[in-house]
């Protein structure tokens, strides 16, 4: 279980890191917290001739609230995100998702940007980014661009960034005062990849009708997904007339390729997913109704 040999690069600035990626192309990989990459290297599931360690680039670490958004630097560790009071106040879905990521000894090293760029189908922050319509900031030799979350996740461990692009920050919108949030997931052992899970955000208007709803799904496809049919079905309706079971079933109704593995069949996983959405919906709407 030792990684094959590679050359190590430790740039001090994003510009320098981007130049290295441009120089090496497919032969380079970004190393941030390493909590997903290093096991894959150790098991020799993957190999790169060059690792570009971005964990010491100061400008990639930090949390800022501005213009109705929280901007989190890509190399900010999960532990920082989970403990930050400003995040808890303005984007509680991140705070609720954090304890589900691995174990605390993983969260000290793992980074928000790394988890999102790695694009594991069971990644909690990825589901949160989808549910809230977050914007990914990517930097390349051609400049900076924003990538909406819904265009970011393209396949198993694949995202829409070019090989010479670096995810530098993610901006999460702050929802209105009458909002509720919840994360539910089911794993055989705490900290394992979830069999299925859901991150639910709901916002109500003055008449307790749903004005906005985001549902991120974990473990139910080759990428993190959205429960779009459920999101669309609830808009404009009063929360009292919507049952949690209905939302759960709707959220999974359009999923095309639910994975089956030793942990369970596709049918089982779909059932767990629907239950997780239903539970999260109940908590989120209860919170929003009391807000």
């Amino acid at each position, binding site marked *: *279980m*030792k*990684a*094959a*040999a*590679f*050359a*190590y690069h*430790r740039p001090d600035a994003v510009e320098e890191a981007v130049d290295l990626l441009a120089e090496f192309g497919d032969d380079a990989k970004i*190393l941030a917290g*390493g*909590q997903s990459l*290093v*096991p894959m*290297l*150790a*098991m020799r599931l993957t190999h790169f001739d060059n*690792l570009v*360690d971005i*964990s010491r680039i100061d400008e990639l670490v930090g949390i800022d609230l501005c213009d109705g958004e929280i901007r989190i630097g890509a190399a900010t560790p999960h*532990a920082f995100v989970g403990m930050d009071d400003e995040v808890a106040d303005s984007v509680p879905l991140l705070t609720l998702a954090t*304890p589900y990521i*691995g*174990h*605390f*000894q*993983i969260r*000290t*090293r793992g980074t928000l940007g790394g988890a999102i760029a790695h694009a594991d189908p069971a990644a909690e922050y990825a589901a949160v980014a989808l549910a809230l319509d977050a914007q990914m900031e990517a930097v390349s030799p051609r400049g900076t661009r924003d990538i909406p979350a819904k265009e970011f996740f393209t396949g198993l461990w694949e995202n829409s960034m070019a090989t010479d692009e670096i995810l530098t920050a993610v901006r999460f919108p702050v929802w209105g005062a009458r909002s509720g949030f919840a994360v539910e997931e089911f794993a055989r*052992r*705490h*900290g394992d990849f979830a069999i299925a899970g859901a991150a639910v955000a709901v916002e109500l208007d003055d008449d307790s009708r749903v004005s906005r709803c985001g549902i991120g799904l974990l473990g139910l496809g080759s990428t993190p997904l959205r429960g779009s049919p459920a999101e669309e079905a609830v808009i404009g309706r009063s929360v009292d007339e919507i049952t949690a079971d209905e939302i759960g079933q709707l959220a999974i109704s359009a999923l095309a390729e639910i994975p089956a593995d030793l942990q369970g069949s596709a049918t089982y996983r779909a059932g767990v997913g629907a239950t997780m959405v239903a539970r999260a919906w109940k908590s989120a709407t209860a919170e929003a109704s009391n807000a």
Partner: protein
Amino acid sequence: MHEWPVQVSVNGRPTQASVEPRLTLADYLRERCGLTGTHLGCEHGACGACTVLVDGQAVRSCLMFAVQADGCEVTTVEGIASEDGELSPVQSALRECHGLQCGFCTPGFVVSITALLRDNPKPTDEEIREGLSGNFCRCTGYQGIVNAVHRAAEVNAEVLG
């Protein structure tokens, strides 16, 4: 591949070496520093036996390359007891409460529990189980370990008075 010079403070002592980038921090500690208390079980971040403190934070030393620890302060299980060999409250409690049998996983537990109690001096049963979910023990069934965390928390509270 091109080697990198690293300087790491280990248990308060400066160490330095030239290392291949692929050398993990765990192997650096065991093979270059001779500190074999840090155990390697799975070598891919699942078992927690290799847990050490890096700049005070509990991390998997198998999921970190030694080059990434350059300039950092590392504490291993060898640095937990006092200089004269007196066991720390966590170590004493593990012995007292039968929190170990074969002892292979124990260094990882000692380090994780030390970090856990520093951040949360009086954890509930649930918080202890959550905090230790990243460490495997194949002997004890965990009851003794959970009891030991409670015991160490009590002793710490008495010491702090």
